[in-house]
């Protein structure tokens, strides 16, 4: 029972093992297999655990409840496929690369478990530091350097906001522990205005991490400059981590303040959807386009926060986690195609459907799923989210979200048209290696399977979310 955090210890230990592999000059593949083994072992250990929603560790620093369980489960699976994709597409693979991926995973998992503002901050820094290094993987690439620099400086600003907010909250509550802060909020004497200021500063900092609109400037550059594998890691894992902490803060601890934060979430949600989709229309580079689409998807996810009214109706929350899972699957697939082929612009994809029929088909399915076209999981996730929003009478939001979903179909279809309806610019058939084939195949299967049989994922989420509130 006390070893519920064993999966994390396994990951941390193997990460440092990988670092030692470099020192001992072992074979290049050793670190890859060691990392993969660690991930699979920790996944098995995680699935073996019973969730204990009310148990906290290290004087309330960590709370390994359903939020942690679900996000760590997703994160480990994502990391396994990131490992496979990196092995397939990054040549030469540096050993420290896998070290940073594992440590980033650790930071993300811990941030979703943090019940303590200090721990949230430290985990935020831990995984951000790893990502700054991962973005500059190609050090000779000028774009990568620029991207990492922008990401680093803006990330430092976001961290500054977080610290300022934490300080203000601490000044009022005298504690970093979220449950104590929750008590202060509910205290009959009312709360101090510092508290509201602190909460809004925390919100700014986390909105930066989830790429909500006024704070999204770094996203297209960082996504474009990073190697495609790292981009897919950023688009999926970082988003899960950032949303899980936003979830824990605003839907458990700061929930009594919803009257205050409701409007800012509302405005940000609409801005994120509209700006993300409209900007994506104008992109010629697919990585930038998918970056803006990732921003737009953050907007859709914010709908769940607004439509969550009280703890008697958990439908928006289940829809939220379902959306996050499906979003990760289809983005991992779409960026995986970019990573495996090395293509970036719309021009590269011209006539792709005739050169590599299978890959083009997979890519089309991922894009259609992102657009939310029916037989795919992307449709179902949007359906759950929007119907939960309708059930809580957020009609304006749903109408705007639907209009945006229609806009998004245009730019996803643009890629399909390039692939199937334009003259091939020549070039040989693209062949991708086995690990990449496995990754894309699994993502494809999941996209279709979850679209037809969502029950298994839904049950998993509902089981885990029991007892969070």
């Amino acid at each position, binding site marked *: 029972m006390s070893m519920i955090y064993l999966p994390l210890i396994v990951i*941390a230990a193997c990460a440092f093992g990988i670092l030692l592999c470099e020192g001992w000059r072992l074979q290049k593949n050793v670190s890859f297999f060691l990392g993969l083994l660690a991930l699979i072992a920790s996944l098995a250990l995680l699935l073996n655990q019973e969730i204990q929603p009310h148990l906290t560790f290290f004087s309330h620093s960590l709370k390994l409840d359903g939020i942690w369980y679900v996000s760590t489960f997703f994160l480990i699976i994502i990391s396994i496929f990131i490992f496979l994709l990196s092995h397939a597409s990054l040549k030469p693979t540096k050993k420290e690369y896998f070290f940073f991926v594992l440590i980033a995973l650790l930071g993300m998992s811990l941030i979703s478990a943090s019940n303590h503002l200090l721990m949230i901050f*430290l985990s935020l820094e831990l995984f951000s*530091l*790893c990502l700054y*290094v991962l973005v500059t993987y190609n050090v000779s690439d000028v774009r990568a350097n620029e991207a990492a620099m922008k990401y680093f400086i803006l990330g430092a600003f976001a961290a500054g906001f977080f610290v300022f907010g934490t300080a203000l909250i*601490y000044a009022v509550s005298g504690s970093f522990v979220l449950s104590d802060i929750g008590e202060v909020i509910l205290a009959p004497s009312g709360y101090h205005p510092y508290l509201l200021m602190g909460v809004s500063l925390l919100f700014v900092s986390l909105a930066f991490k989830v790429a909500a609109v006024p704070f999204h400037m770094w996203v297209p550059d960082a996504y474009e400059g990073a190697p495609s594998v790292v981009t897919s890691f950023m688009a999926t894992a970082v988003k899960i981590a950032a949303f899980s902490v936003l979830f824990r803060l605003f839907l458990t601890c700061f929930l009594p303040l919803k009257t205050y934060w409701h409007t800012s979430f509302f405005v940000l949600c609409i801005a994120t959807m509209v700006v993300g989709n409209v900007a994506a229309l104008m992109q010629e580079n697919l990585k930038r386009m998918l970056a803006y689409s990732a921003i737009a998807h953050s907007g859709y996810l914010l709908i769940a926060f607004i439509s969550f009214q009280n703890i008697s109706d958990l439908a928006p929350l289940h829809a939220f986690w379902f959306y996050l899972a499906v979003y990760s699957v289809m983005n991992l697939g779409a960026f995986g195609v970019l990573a495996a082929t090395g293509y970036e612009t719309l021009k590269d994809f011209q006539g792709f459907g005739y050169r590599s029929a299978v890959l083009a088909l997979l890519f089309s399915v991922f894009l259609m799923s992102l657009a939310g076209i029916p037989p795919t999981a992307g449709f179902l996730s949007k359906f759950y989210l929007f119907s939960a929003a309708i059930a809580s009478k957020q009609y304006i939001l749903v109408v705007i979200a639907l209009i945006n979903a229609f806009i998004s179909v245009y730019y996803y279809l643009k890629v399909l048209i390039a692939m199937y309806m334009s003259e091939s610019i020549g070039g040989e058939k693209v062949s991708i290696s086995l690990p990449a084939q496995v990754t894309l195949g699994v993502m494809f299967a999941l996209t279709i399977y979850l679209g037809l049989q969502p029950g298994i994922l839904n049950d998993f989420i509902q089981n885990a979310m029991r007892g969070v509130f």
Partner: protein
Amino acid sequence: MSQILFYVVALLSLGCALSVILQRNPVYSALSLVGFLFLQAVYFVILRAYFLAVVQVLIYAGAIMVLFVYVVMVMNLSSDDLPRLHFKPVSIFLGGLFASILFYLFQSDKPITRIQALVVENNITEIAKLLFSEYVLAFEYISFLLVVAMVGVVVLNQRTQS
């Protein structure tokens, strides 16, 4: 007495902080930052947190500032390289808005009662106790973070050489 001291130090540190961002020459900025960090140490003395004051001077004003000045020296900027200071009206407006919101908030007369200052004779012992009991995980975690930062720096530099 301590109130007067506080206001004097506050004004001085405000001046230093402004000077950090308004100086064109980075060396002057760095020196203003040293002044600012020293004045921060004075706050800790007013709060009777003597250990923190010493640490503040040693680590920030000492170690970290040396790094800053060193970097500025290595870069060896001439005055042509330095950017002209220019302020966009939008940023002034937004900054002013943020400042006035903060000012408005700090005017609030609601008392803050939750924090009890840690006023004891030997506050090193108290800090040590806290570090190894309540904050033990965070304490260990920071060492983890430092290792990762160090490896990151080494990795980034390795690649630049090759």
